């Protein structure tokens, strides 16, 4: 018995969702991210202590029944700070990724669709930019513009956006040779219409996968910038910042002041990675 599949959009979507729900890595990753998203949104309300409240008499206490993860050198409760610390990074990193996706999509559509001189100029500039180590670009930009959450979002958004535009461009290059684009050209549709209404919906899957992966790298970048003092600023309970203020005491055996923040960052990036891997598998299948 033979089946005839008609690939309507809704059946394609159902297929993708079914594949996602069968994918173990995707479900585990989504669960981890859901946990941290809840902490970011409502963490402040259910933590046992105020993450910023100091209690010098109980400074540097090891994990105990009152303080599950111990206290830092100002006596602040580390469990509360780890839960609340998810908020800043989970705001800045996704915003930077959204900015990067917008920049990458527009730049990729323009260079891929027009080709010629637009493509040549942008491509050479982007290649030159990609040849410079990202941390150096970020460091230079932040030294020049000063430290703020806005600068971090702008720097990461611009930097990742130019890289993403290469993926979008190569997708556009193969797409623009297809008949529906020729048909739209014959209907005398405007270039903007062809790029954003005709081509864009067809290249969404690779853009989606790339953005999900980029969230992981954005978290890497935000955490790293905070750790070296160029990202989020005190007294934010941000994980990278907490590690940066506490790691000098690591030789003294105060492991709880850094370990839980490190594990929090690790769980978040691995969660996003598992989710991106599952998404890639489902959209590719």
């Amino acid at each position, binding site marked *: 018995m033979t089946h005839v599949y008609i690939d309507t959009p809704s059946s394609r979507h159902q297929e993708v969702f079914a594949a996602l729900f069968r994918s173990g*890595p995707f479900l585990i990753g989504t669960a981890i991210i859901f946990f941290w998203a809840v902490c970011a949104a409502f963490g402040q309300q259910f933590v046992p202590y105020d993450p910023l409240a100091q209690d010098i008499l109980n400074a540097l206490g090891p994990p105990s029944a009152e303080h599950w993860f111990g206290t830092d050198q100002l006596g602040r409760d580390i469990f509360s700070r780890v839960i609340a610390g998810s908020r800043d990074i989970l705001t800045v990193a996704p915003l930077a990724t959204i900015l990067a996706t917008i920049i990458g999509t527009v730049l990729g559509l323009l260079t891929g669709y027009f080709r010629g001189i637009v493509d040549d100029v942008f491509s*050479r*500039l982007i*290649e*030159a*930019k990609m*040849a*410079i*180590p*990202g*941390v*150096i*670009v970020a*460091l*230079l*930009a*932040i*030294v*020049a*513009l000063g430290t703020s959450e806005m600068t971090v979002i702008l720097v990461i958004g611009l930097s990742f956006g130019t890289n993403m535009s290469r993926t979008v461009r190569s997708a556009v290059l193969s797409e623009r040779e297809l008949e529906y684009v020729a048909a739209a050209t014959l209907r005398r549709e405007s270039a903007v219409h062809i790029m954003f209404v005709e081509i864009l919906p067809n290249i969404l899957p690779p853009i989606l996968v790339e953005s999900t992966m980029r969230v*992981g*790298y954005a*978290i*890497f970048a935000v*955490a*790293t910038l905070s*750790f*070296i*003092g*160029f990202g989020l600023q005190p007294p934010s309970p941000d994980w*990278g910042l907490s*590690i*940066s203020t506490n*790691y000098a005491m*690591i*030789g003294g*055996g105060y*492991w709880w002041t*850094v*370990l839980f923040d*490190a*594990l929090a*960052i*690790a769980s978040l*990036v*691995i969660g*996003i*990675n*598992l989710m991106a*891997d599952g998404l890639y598998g489902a959209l590719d299948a």
Partner: protein
Amino acid sequence: MIARFIARRIALALVTLFVLSVLVFFCCQVLPGNVALAILGPQADPRTVNVLNHELGVDRPLLVQYSSWITSFLQGDMGRSYIYRAPVAPFILQAIGHSLKLASVAILVVVPLGILGGVVAALNVHRPLDRIISIGGVSATILPEFVSGIVLILVFGVWLRWLPISAAWPQGAGVFTQVYHLILPAMPLVLVLFGYIARMARAGMIEALDSDYTRTAVLKGLTWRLVIWRHVLRNALLPTITVIATQAGYLIGGLVVVETLFRYEGVGSLIFAAATSKDFPMLEAAVLVIGITYALATLIADLLYSILNPRIRMGSYK
């Protein structure tokens, strides 16, 4: 054909370096505004600020500043540090020497390990071992170095006490002591690079295993071991060479973090210290020297690849 490819590639490297020099100049000499004020702080006397600005030469037109800066740099004069009040070149050369030692330890560990991981994954493709190596590799790649560094310090330095937690070795230490101190700092870099190298090696292996020449080798009765060693590996590992060289750029960024975490006086911590203290000549010179090193590394890698791979050498490279 190959001459055109080389000329094109060198031209691209020059464009890159020009863009980098403009970026560096723009970020360090234009955007911060009043340089003397930035150094002396907001409470400084306006006359002292003017005198210092004049002394530093930052009150001249921008084009004059850029051309005088870049010409003296090309003549070997990298400028004087604002902080140390001394030429920056000796500081940068010493720091690069330190960083090269750290990077070499990391590279010597990760290249064989990454290739082995990729080959094992490809030989077990889509089986659990492949999934573990692939997902584990990518997860290690996106783990920030300071996160893996902290966990490694806690486990091997603080709890097990197997390795020193500081990269600074005692004065006059021999090669082995130096390497002993560099093992722990190199590990975060190894973790990040492992995923990239393993993924490239795996992809190259899978393509080579799937090829007609491999089938021919199997069909003519060679043993599986011989097919792998003589036919598959040789073709599969070519793309991996380029990946290793292009990761030099990542490595430099990673050094900033790792050297800060382990208090190692390399070029990463030098750049970080210069950025924090607004020592712009030091920052500019260090970034440019790194940019040149990186451009040369990728240039050599591309040329090596084109020489080793006849398809790129003879084909129409666009």
